[in-house]
């Protein structure tokens, strides 16, 4: 066992930190307030290769390991988790899914532009009535011989507008339930696709979230990923990896809030001394540090298992549930330490607290993670 990062991993961590401080910090509050997508910063993110960082260089990616990805996600999410989520969805859901289960023609056509940052991807699973219960998909992909005809609505889709490549999960054989589901690659510009308005969210307001409506959208059969009926397995496998991304994002939100709380505790004086010298604050910081250390170790363990090609589904569920819940606790305490200043935008921690809430909800709620974990214990 070795807890030391490699020279390369440290360099990636530093590159992500420099990127976030240089390109994201200066306007993160304004973008959050006005729900502005970080278009300029995304160009830089692409130039630096963070969008396809884990994809095989054969397809134009960076070929980096999952540990490096955790480190980069943490650093970026410390400052701006809206950018973190674009990176996570594109890297761990869309690109990983295509690379692992797509055929070479699909990879050439869709994965290469994604990995080189010419396009962004979105993963369309959630529906108005199918979130945690992903088996009850109402969106249909009717088999029409040489093509599928897609109809239905997908909700809360991250990157819905900025993405050009969608992976859509839809039901082809409703009687077969989850074994009748397919995963289909869809060009966003295909006729029949319309977007709902930008969602007004509690946090991560700078990320691009819409509902997507499909009305007789005709997609060639060759765009189906894997065998007929593979879609549900595809979605579940992909979400296992996605959880590492969101766990690392939650870790970043927590450690970003923690760093700000430590800085504030050393500066702010009350009763004649810095508030960090009061045990009430010092012990809060100590508890936060331990929880963050645990979060990081869970993320790294899941990432390490994935890099070693060992089963990581349970480890990633544990990391996702723990890191998200801890992010909520730590950001709440960071606001408390800041007192009145914590409740206003300028000090960032109220924003981080709003962002933390989403990590307990999306890509499998904390409760769904507990179902995954407990089933593995009790089986």
């Amino acid at each position, binding site marked *: 066992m070795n807890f030391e990062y490699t*020279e*390369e991993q*440290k*360099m*990636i961590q530093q*590159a992500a930190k*420099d*990127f976030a401080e*240089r390109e994201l910090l200066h306007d993160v509050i304004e973008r959050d307030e006005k729900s502005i997508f970080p278009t300029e910063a995304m160009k830089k993110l692409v*130039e*630096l*290769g*963070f969008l396809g*960082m884990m994809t095989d*260089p054969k397809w134009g*990616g*960076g*070929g*980096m390991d999952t540990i490096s990805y955790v480190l980069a996600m943490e650093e970026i999410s410390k400052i701006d988790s809206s950018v973190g989520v674009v990176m996570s969805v594109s890297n761990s859901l869309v690109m990983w899914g295509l690379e692992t289960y797509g055929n070479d023609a699909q990879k050439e056509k869709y994965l290469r532009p994604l990995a080189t940052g010419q396009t962004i991807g979105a993963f369309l699973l959630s529906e108005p009535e199918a979130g945690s219960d992903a088996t009850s998909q109402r969106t249909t992909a009717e088999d029409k011989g040489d093509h599928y005809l897609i109809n239905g609505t997908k909700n809360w889709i991250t990157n819905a507008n900025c993405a050009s490549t969608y992976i859509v999960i839809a039901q082809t054989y409703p009687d077969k339930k989850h074994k009748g589901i397919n995963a289909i690659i869809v060009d966003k510009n295909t006729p029949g696709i319309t977007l709902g308005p930008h969602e007004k969210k509690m946090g991560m307001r700078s990320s691009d979230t819409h509902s997507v409506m499909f009305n007789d959208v005709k997609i060639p059969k060759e765009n189906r990923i894997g065998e007929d009926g593979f879609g549900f397995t595809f979605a579940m496998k992909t979400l296992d990896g996605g959880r590492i991304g969101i766990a690392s994002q939650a870790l970043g939100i927590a450690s970003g809030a923690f760093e700000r709380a430590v800085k504030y505790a050393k500066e702010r004086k009350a009763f004649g001394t810095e508030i960090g010298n009061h045990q009430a604050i010092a012990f809060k910081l100590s508890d936060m540090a331990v929880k963050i250390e645990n979060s990081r170790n869970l993320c790294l363990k899941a990432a390490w298992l994935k890099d070693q090609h060992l089963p990581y589904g349970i480890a990633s569920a544990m990391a996702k549930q723990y890191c998200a819940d801890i992010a909520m606790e730590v950001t709440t305490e960071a606001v408390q330490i800041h007192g009145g200043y914590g409740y206003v935008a300028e000090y960032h921690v109220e924003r981080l607290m709003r962002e933390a809430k989403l990590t307990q909800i999306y890509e499998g709620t904390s409760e769904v993670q507990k179902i995954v974990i407990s089933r593995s214990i009790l089986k």
Partner: protein
Amino acid sequence: MKILICISNVPDTTTKIKFTNNNTTFDVAGVQWIINPWDELALTRAIELKETNAGTIENITVIHVGLNTSDPTIRKALAIGADKAIRINAEAKDSYFVAAQIAEFVKKEPFDVILCGIESSDYNGFSVGGMLSELLDYPSVSALSSLEIANAEIKLKRGIDGGHEVISIVTPFVGIVQKGIAKEARIPNMRGIMMAKAKPLQVVEPVLIDNFTEFVSFEYPKPKATCKKIDPENVKELINLLHNEAKVI
């Protein structure tokens, strides 16, 4: 045209500086090391020039005098875009030692353009570049804020009192650069980080050079004296303190 950039490995500029051994040794525990910011800007400019003059500039090499603990910093220079790195395997004792080691290397393997940062952010010696040009008997221009290479012609710009002077120079020469030479240091991209592993980092044993200086001790700057506040109405007290305590009137 071959460009050599001399890089120094320095503590991150936000490091809290501590000393050990009775204030004679800098305590490196927990220090994050970076490329000296001036050297990094010189490297950035060289890479920009290589991108716009692909035919003219064939190679960018970085050279460093230090032990293998500097390797991560050297790898970062390779990740940013240097083609090759040389590390002279010796602890950098002072400016003369560094300049003399680099000069000995350059005598055996010449370069057309040698760039150094004007100072390093650790000991701020302002001297390696000047010493290096003298030891090599090359012309040098200091405090460069602009370096242009077009059709093998070199144009330099440096700030002077109230304006700038523009200089043309023949190779080989030593350019000593200050801030402004490049806009902003680059963040290495994933491709660069991946490629850095495969780029050559050649380790060269040092030549025997006399040591002329040694650190006797380090001292912290004196803490600022506390400020005394006097009521604006109380002129008598102000005069009393200035006369009897500060003894300036």
